[in-house]
């Protein structure tokens, strides 16, 4: 299969995943009806029309944005740190978000507020991840090599995680439950304001990222070689960290810390496209990330039942076996 054919397959898969996602759930909406409604002809059954437009479509768009953001962030971090285990959260973004939410929940109950609105946790998570990110960014300006930066990022993550454990040890059963619920990830709670902010950040981040495709490719040769080719390592590093922070940070703030996808999708794409050229992998991870997230969300809705599984568990349950299977079959991870 040529690269173009692979992209066609990927796009078709993404569209199928989107339609499945819109149609399946506790209530099924026929495929054709959702298509027609998207095209402007309302569905006769007005409650289905309502479910589609005020619940399914925002959720699907969120899944698209979050999936592609996280996959792209993972790609950036893997290339920057030349480490196949790097993911969007190596710089402590998700633990920062967790800390923000944990502090909010604790603080709120201290003032006698028992339930926090969705918007509040989003703001808490954003502030938390921004603080950790700016700390890591400040360090990035001082540290010479990326490996030290990676370790420092992980250390920041550990500190934040430790504070979160302390806080959860001290909190009440109800607070703990709320926190765990948040950490399992939730695509459905998004409101229109958050969704617009997410969309703007995602589109902006991805567009700016296109400018980094060329230096990302040079980084594949190692930092010394990249430098000799005229790449400013420090500048590229900061740009990558800022874009990753925005993409992964906003995704985490809005749907909770969704693990795994950001680590796995770049590997899946490299294996399937049989290249590590970012000109191909960059668009590939965006589409694949979105597709994967849509599929996982569809599955987590447990079609034909009213039960819902946490999205964070589904991404790993589905994704990990795929990676294992691919590795056994292809025998070598391209990295």
């Amino acid at each position, binding site marked *: 299969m040529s690269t173009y054919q692979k992209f066609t397959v990927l796009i078709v898969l993404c569209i199928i995943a989107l339609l499945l996602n819109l149609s399946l759930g506790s209530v099924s909406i026929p495929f054709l009806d959702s298509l027609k409604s998207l095209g402007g002809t309302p569905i006769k059954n007005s409650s289905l029309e309502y479910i589609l437009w005020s619940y399914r479509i925002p959720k699907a768009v969120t899944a698209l944005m979050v999936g592609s953001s996280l996959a792209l962030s993972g790609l950036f971090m893997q290339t920057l740190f*030349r480490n196949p285990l790097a993911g969007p959260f190596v710089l402590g973004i998700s633990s920062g978000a967790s800390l923000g939410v944990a502090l909010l929940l604790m603080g709120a109950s201290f003032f006698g507020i028992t339930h926090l609105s969705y918007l509040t946790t989003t703001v808490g998570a954003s502030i938390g991840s921004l603080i950790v990110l700016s700390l890591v960014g400040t360090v990035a300006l001082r540290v010479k090599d990326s490996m030290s930066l990676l370790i420092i990022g992980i250390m920041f993550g550990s500190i934040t995680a430790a504070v979160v454990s302390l806080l959860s040890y001290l909190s009440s059963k109800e607070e703990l439950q709320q926190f765990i619920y948040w950490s399992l990830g939730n695509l459905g709670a998004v409101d229109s304001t958050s969704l617009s902010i997410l969309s703007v950040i995602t589109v902006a981040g991805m567009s700016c990222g296109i400018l980094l495709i060329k230096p990302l490719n*040079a980084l594949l*040769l*190692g930092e010394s070689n990249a430098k*000799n080719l005229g*790449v400013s390592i420090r500048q590229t590093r900061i740009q990558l960290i800022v874009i990753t922070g925005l993409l992964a940070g906003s995704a985490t703030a809005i749907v909770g810390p969704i693990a795994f996808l950001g680590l796995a999708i770049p590997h899946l794409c490299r294996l399937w496209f049989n*290249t*590590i050229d970012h000109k191909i992998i960059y668009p590939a991870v965006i589409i694949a990330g979105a597709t994967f997230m849509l599929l996982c969300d569809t599955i987590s809705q447990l079609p034909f039942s009213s039960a819902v599984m946490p999205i964070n568990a589904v991404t790993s349950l589905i994704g990990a076996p795929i990676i294992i299977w691919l590795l056994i079959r292809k025998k070598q991870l391209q990295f």
Partner: protein
Amino acid sequence: MRLEKLSIGYKGKCLVSDLNLSFKPGTLNAIIGVNGIGKSTLIKTLSNEINALSGSVIIDSQELSSISPKESAKLISVVLTNRAENKFLSVYELIQMGRYPYLNWLGKLTQKDFEIIEQALELFSITALRTKKCIELSDGQYQKVLIARAFVQDTPYILLDEPSTHLDLYHKINLFKTLSDLAKNHQKCIILSTHEIERSIELADQMLLLLEKEHYFSSPKDLINKGVFNRIFPSEMVNFNPLTKSFDINTLNT
């Protein structure tokens, strides 16, 4: 490329001081000396990866440290051995990376770029390897690919840091021959650090010999006449034989 009162090393440790010499176009220059004497540091200084302790490197009447990374990428290319390149790049992808300084923001190759890449594949007889991943190559083939990458970068200066490590005798000779031809036929100034003293004597135009406190820069013949090769290693172990132009192991004293 002219070195003026150049001192190199790291913070608090000066390795080589007061280098005054120039590397000319169309020549193969070998830097030799024992481990840790400063060969790689000199390569790194000349490629602007680290700063000199004092003195200056002058290229086309410009000081190296004042040249922007983008401009110096069009003047100096570097072949580093044993660095963390990603070996999953294909040969073609790796070589085309040498065109980086000339490409637009998206890295789109033009007709001229394709031509020079084809020329490099031809020149180093690696056309058959173009779609192979670097991980599938032998050390000798990989070294050729790295040099081809430096070639397409189209710079008047090519620096190589111990390119002959890991190569067998045939490939070592092949490498030196390739570099020597590249210098002559394309008027490149090639500077390499190496432990291959005997190969350098045969094929290099100029040799820079780094010793503990001093250094010599001259043609191999000149250096043999001065008898300086005997001062590289402790004489109780090896002796330089000016007639065979090689080192003899000293078995008499054992």
